[in-house]
């Protein structure tokens, strides 16, 4: 600083020796099309302004033209690494507005997939975050196990990335045969891989020096900006909607809410890693609670489709099928906000219905949007490399940010 002041004394015009550099929108480690306008003094960041909108696809407008059941497919695409929790927030919001009773088994299955999706999402984060730091192999190891989870999702929902498996009223289909065994296999196998991941990062001085004390995000900032999820829990705040506003009978499960108090990238890192272990615990408990086959959606035919054999022979069932798929079900007038704990924080939907079969207003409160807003604070005064760490450690998802 001293030299800068000296220079300023000589020629005030020369004080600004900063360089503006566009990190993104096409950049290997912005995880999508994020653009950060960095003002650099050498390699030190003077200012970091995220510029978003490159992935804006107008989901909120599109949703207003779709029926509630169709909207589900849009929620998949918000945070496409954790589609199931998006689905969940949306269907819970609609169910709350319509006051539908969903079979308990379906709710448990929702818990199961929410947690699987959380593990998958955290695995992607772990892999990419460490890859941003320069270590390559962990990414592939993480992908390997994520693949197993995606296979599980595929077995149940039919696709891997955008399942739309949860529907208003329950699930789209029942669990496939042998699903429990597959999940058990995964649970049996996965801890070994967790050890592998930890072996690569635990205590590694190169990783530690990249994370410890970097991109500080304190609790007040979290309050100010509405930062939620692991980022907030890394400030020592044990807030978790699964515990605090339990949905889908989450209060019946035993799990801890991992927290750290250092507020830095290192704390966030370990909160997430520990969350994976907690999710595994929940998955293990769910498996004990649900039967392999059974009720998977409400039998209220004004909401969920009639069984296929009825459609072929029963006039009433055919009419209900016809109306449900072409017009959708009407949702009573009103507004509701329903949030769930997604892997990235509070994933909420604010829905306004005018009584019709399509949402009047469909607002997704996507966690990454609010988390990314803290970018100028957490990236300030770091190095260029710390900006990368910051982006990785707040775990943003551009589909989530840009909607």
């Amino acid at each position: 600083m001293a030299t800068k002041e000296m220079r300023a004394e000589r020629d005030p015009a020369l004080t600004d020796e900063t360089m503006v550099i566009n990190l993104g929108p096409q950049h290997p480690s912005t995880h999508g099309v994020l653009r950060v306008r960095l003002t650099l003094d050498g390699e030190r960041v003077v200012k970091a302004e995220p510029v978003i909108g490159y992935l804006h696809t107008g989901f909120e407008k599109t949703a207003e033209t779709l029926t509630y059941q169709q909207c589900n497919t849009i929620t998949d695409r918000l945070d496409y690494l954790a589609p199931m929790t998006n689905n969940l927030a949306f269907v819970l919001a609609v169910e709350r507005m319509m006051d539908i009773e969903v079979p308990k088994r379906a709710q448990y299955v929702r818990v199961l997939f929410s947690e699987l999706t959380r593990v998958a999402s955290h695995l992607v984060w772990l892999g990419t975050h460490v890859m941003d730091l320069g270590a390559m192999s962990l990414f592939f190891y993480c992908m390997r196990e994520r693949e197993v989870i995606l296979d599980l999702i595929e077995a149940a929902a039919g696709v891997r990335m955008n399942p739309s498996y949860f529907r208003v009223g329950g699930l789209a289909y029942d669990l496939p045969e042998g699903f429990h065994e597959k999940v058990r296999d995964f649970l049996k196998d996965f801890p070994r891989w967790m050890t592998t991941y930890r072996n690569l990062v635990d205590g590694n001085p190169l990783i530690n020096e990249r994370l410890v004390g970097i991109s500080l995000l304190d609790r007040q900032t979290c309050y100010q900006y509405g930062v939620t999820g692991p980022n907030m829990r890394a400030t020592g705040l044990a807030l978790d909607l699964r515990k605090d506003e339990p949905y889908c009978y989450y209060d019946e499960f035993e799990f801890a809410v991992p927290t750290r108090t250092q507020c830095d990238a290192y704390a966030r890192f370990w909160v997430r890693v520990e969350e994976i272990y907690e999710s595994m615990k929940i998955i293990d408990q769910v498996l004990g609670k649900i039967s392999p086959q059974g009720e998977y959606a409400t039998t209220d035919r004004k909401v969920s489709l009639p069984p296929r054999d009825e459609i072929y022979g029963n006039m009433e069932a055919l009419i209900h099928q016809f109306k449900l798929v072409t017009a959708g079900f009407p949702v009573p007038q009103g507004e509701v906000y329903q949030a769930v704990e997604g892997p990235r924080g509070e994933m909420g939907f604010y829905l306004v219905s005018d009584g019709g079969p399509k949402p009047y207003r469909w607002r997704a409160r996507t966690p990454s949007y609010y988390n990314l807003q803290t970018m100028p604070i957490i990236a300030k005064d770091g190095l260029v490399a710390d900006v990368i760490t910051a982006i990785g450690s707040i775990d943003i998802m551009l589909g989530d940010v840009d909607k």
Partner: protein
Amino acid sequence: MIRLTIDDQEIEVREGTMIADAAARLGIDIPVYCYHEALGPLGACRMCLVGVEKMPKLATACTTAVQDGMVVHTYGEAVDKGRKGVLEFLLINHPLDCPVCDKGGECFLQDYTFQYGPPKGRFKEPKIQKVKDGPINEFVLIDQERCVLCQRCVRFMDEYVGEPQLLLDGRGVETVVTTVDGVPATSQFSGNVIDLCPVGALLSAPYQHKGRPWNIERQESVCTMCPVGCTTLATGRDGHIVRIEGRPVPDRSWGWLCDRGRFGYDYATDPTRLTISFLHANPEAAARTTRQVGHWMSDVMRDAGPDSIAVVMGGLHTVEEAHQVHAFAKNVIGTSRLSISRDVPGYVPRVLNGTYADIADADTILLVGVDPYEAVPVVHLKLRERQKSKRPVKILAVAPRDLSRDSLDVNTLITHAGQEAQVLGWALSQGMGTHPAVKKLAATAPVGVADEDLTALSEALGSSEHLTILWDGLQNEVGSVLAALADARGEKATRILPTWGPSNWRGFERAGFSADFDALTSLLEDARAGKIQMLMTFGADLLREYPDERLVREALQKVPHVVFEGLFRPTEPSLYGAQLPQAGPGEVAGTYVNMEARLLSATPSVTPPGQARPVKSYLTAWAHALNKPFVADDDWDPYGDDTADLLPFDGIQAKVWALKPPNLGNASGMELVTGALVIENGIPSHILEPRAPKFPGRISPQDAEILGIVGQGLVRLGKDGREIRVPVTVDERMTPGRIFVPLGMASCPVNRLGLGAVEVARLEEVPTT
């Protein structure tokens, strides 16, 4: 007034109101199939069950009249159960047709079952088989299996239209709706049963399998087939209009349409439609036509001055387009030779003040020349509704042919062709002869009309408190009489509705054109005299539309550059230097005006075909060629500042002048009588072909005998060396010595001859069409 409570809401309604209507006023939806406000209560479908306190059983809301202090529940366990039961019964024999049924998605049976019905039916027995896809006529299909026997269609045809061509046949589960003796329904209102049918039993044949509610675009439109201006919903799919439906407007229209308007939408894809522009009927030159017209324009303006360019505006353009053309002609060209294509009787607008409400309010209705059933069909329904209502009404007619028919009782005073003005004038002078305006008419006594008829007419005209007149506009002198009549009747309401179409000229007045009768005639005479170098017609086929074909022909031959812009190929393409395709109704947004002078907005549901463009794009191109600025005033709004949608007519005063005695011609020939026929209004339609009269001419049985025609035949009409051939049919209602030929038919252009006496001879050959 009666106070009652429906679902905890109190309402006060008139005595005799049904619960269903009272609930509807509160915005409470009561499901019902059979009830329609225009048709009255029946109670056939039992769908509208409601609970009424102190009544032991559920009551049908559509047949139960309100009573003071009534407490009605439209939901609750009993009501739900009742509705579930009714729906389950309705669906016992309903086929599993939703996927193949055209009504799917717009079907009340589906809607109510989804809203109120059981999720699953308990009946597993085989369903009763009935006729599927049977025809009612060329346009309407019936699927008897789907019918819920609400009888709306039967009652509509029987009671409302007065043409009982549908009936209920059979007993019990075998009951079906069918046509009388299996004869196809001929009523020109048959299409309305499609709109009326709450389920998928009656379906439009041309629309069959064409679209679904989710893949079509339905836009509010206006029917431009005749001057009634029915409000419609146009359904577009994949760039074509595939369906027209009636659009009810509260307090104004039930949304009935005639079959002409409902099924005549395929003109847009007709092979005679102009879709590319031509130079001298030469398709090769299509690409540069618009530019070439601009060059002509610039040459003419340079060599002969702007005033040698004349612009004629036709009726199928929107008022906004007329405004643009007017602005272009005035500001860019600078010509004063502007005209509207129809021979608008410029002296009457002051009194053309009627609305459809005047039909409902009138105590006397006078038809001058016009046959509403043929020319303005939906007005016929209005007349019939008026006649059926409790208050008495007299429907009189002064026309050269009998206008009474089974469905409408009209007391016709049959005159000679062209004699209507004289008859009316004389009747007027009989009763109100002292009034200066009537004196000015100087009417003379007509020949061949019974005195007592004249006296009766005179009395009716004088004594009526609310007189509504429908006028076909064929004889200009009638305007003078009507003006005098309105003047003489003073404070008593005299309402006149013009039934000639297209009626957009009234909007063109607002757009800047002057509604002056002589303008077009003098323009054509100027053209014949060689004073005009360039004539541009927008949406007007003068050769077909103008009353004097010879004048038009001679004028067009004289003008070096004739530019035609229109929907269809002109009658004689060789007369036109350039032809440009027009974007027609349903393809442009804009405002149309109906015979009430009401402004009606239409939204396009499809885009124009081929090279057809809105007029604005041509004007812009020409202005570019002329190197002059042209800014189309897109913000111009025909509604003006006031929100009323009826055009005021303040600018032009009614004129009364002395009547000339009519030229009734020599006694040797027959009298040519003509009139508008909506089915033959010059707009082609493939769908409607079965409906188009093969023998449009009509003669009396006596004349047929003289000419040796049995049933149908072909005659030649001649006058002053000009002749047309007309296939004729024998019509009991024709008066001997008269032959009726519809207006505006391309195959027998009656404007080649003009009205009055013609020589008639039978031709041996029978036309093959």
